[in-house]
């Protein structure tokens, strides 16, 4: 068993240090790059928190849609192939809901401030 603090706690501590101590003393292109870097660390903390439950639900939906078992990437490849061939389309029960659910989960990690995501989140609530 690995000791604490957890990866999320460690990354948060580093990101907070960069944000509060280093950012005010940084200028120009390096300030831009620093912001990009801090955003990336924030993304990692979101992924560490959300990936587990999100991907478990995604895999369950894919198995139900496709009627097969496999790793998450195998299941996604199978879905991609079936959409490409036309075997599955938006008339397939559950496909649209699956794509929306999966995409919303991705944005919750990648870019929760993206305007389209915030709009869809608000409309659902």
């Amino acid at each position, binding site marked *: 068993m690995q000791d604490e603090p957890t990866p999320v706690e460690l990354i948060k501590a580093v990101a907070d240090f960069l944000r509060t101590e280093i950012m005010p003393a940084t200028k120009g292109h390096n300030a831009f*790059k620093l912001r990009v870097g801090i955003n990336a660390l924030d993304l990692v903390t979101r992924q560490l928190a959300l990936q587990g439950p999100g991907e478990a639900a995604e895999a369950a939906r894919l198995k139900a849609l496709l009627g097969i078992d496999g790793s998450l990437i195998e299941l996604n490849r199978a879905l*991609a192939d079936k959409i490409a061939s036309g075997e599955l389309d938006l008339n397939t029960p559950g496909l649209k809901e699956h794509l929306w659910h999966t995409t*919303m989960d991705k*944005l919750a990690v990648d870019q929760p401030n*993206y*305007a389209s995501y915030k709009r*869809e989140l608000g409309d659902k609530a």
Partner: protein
Amino acid sequence: MIETELSRCVAAFYPGATGVIGAAKLSGGASQETWTFDIVHPAGNVGAILRRAPPGYSASPSPSRAPGLEAEADLMQLAHDAGLPSPRVLHVLKPEEGLGRGFIMIRVEGETIARKILRDAEFASARPILARQLGRIAAGIHALPEAKLPKLRISSATMEIADLAREYRSTNWPRPVFELALRWLADHDPGPSRETTLVHGDFRNGNLVIGPDGVRAVLDWEIAHLGDPMEDLGWICVNSWRFGEIDKPVGGFGAREDLFAGYEEAGRKVDPERVTFWEVMGTLRWGIMCGRMMQRFRNAPDHPMEQAVIGRRPSETEIDLLRLLAPRA
């Protein structure tokens, strides 16, 4: 120091010029650079921009899509001569000048950063007029006489779909939403356009110099080609170029109706269904370009952080494609 070569070059083509000052690199990777500088002249200094591929690099970063810097210079000068907002080209570089391939143009003052144009008070008076103005400008670009154009690749909806499919498959990463979009595009391929015109190819917020008075210059002609003129109208409506102003489809500035009205005012016809088709295509194209950044990041020896982060942006276009193709009730 680039100022030495620039001074020599400028003295040869600009009568009365005595040198250059203030050369600074604005942007650029290894193969293409943009520099700003001032031409020193007794009658007053002149702001200028150098766009170049440094010595040893090709004038086109991707020869299959881009016509090269000399063609870019031709197009900008043609647009300028036709009265469109485009910088005057001062000089096309010659090999013996030692500056590489490229050209020097007048520096048009104004803002290019999309978020500033959309948020800053300085541009409040410009924002409501931009969509219509951009329609008129697009019409002007599409009306440039084909006989005067440099050699450009010809493209069509069908060719673009095949191109995108190939690029997407080369990433070898399954994206069911992109597959859905590729199917939709194939099913809605409008076929050859009624006419083939010059297409700017990257006509969007971010490639425009804007002042409080409106559009001052259209930049970045590097993927100009011949094709369906509706492509430019669809591309400027792609949500990625609205920078958060998602209810204003035209670059975050205004309504499609205004864009179309400006276009038709200039005597050209809009085909709204084709525009929508190209908006879907453009959304997918940007998503695939972001996805390919992941590969570039992995392959680059220095693993550039910015490319890594762009590699996590395809999901933005996935939600936009779903909003276009499978909207929730």
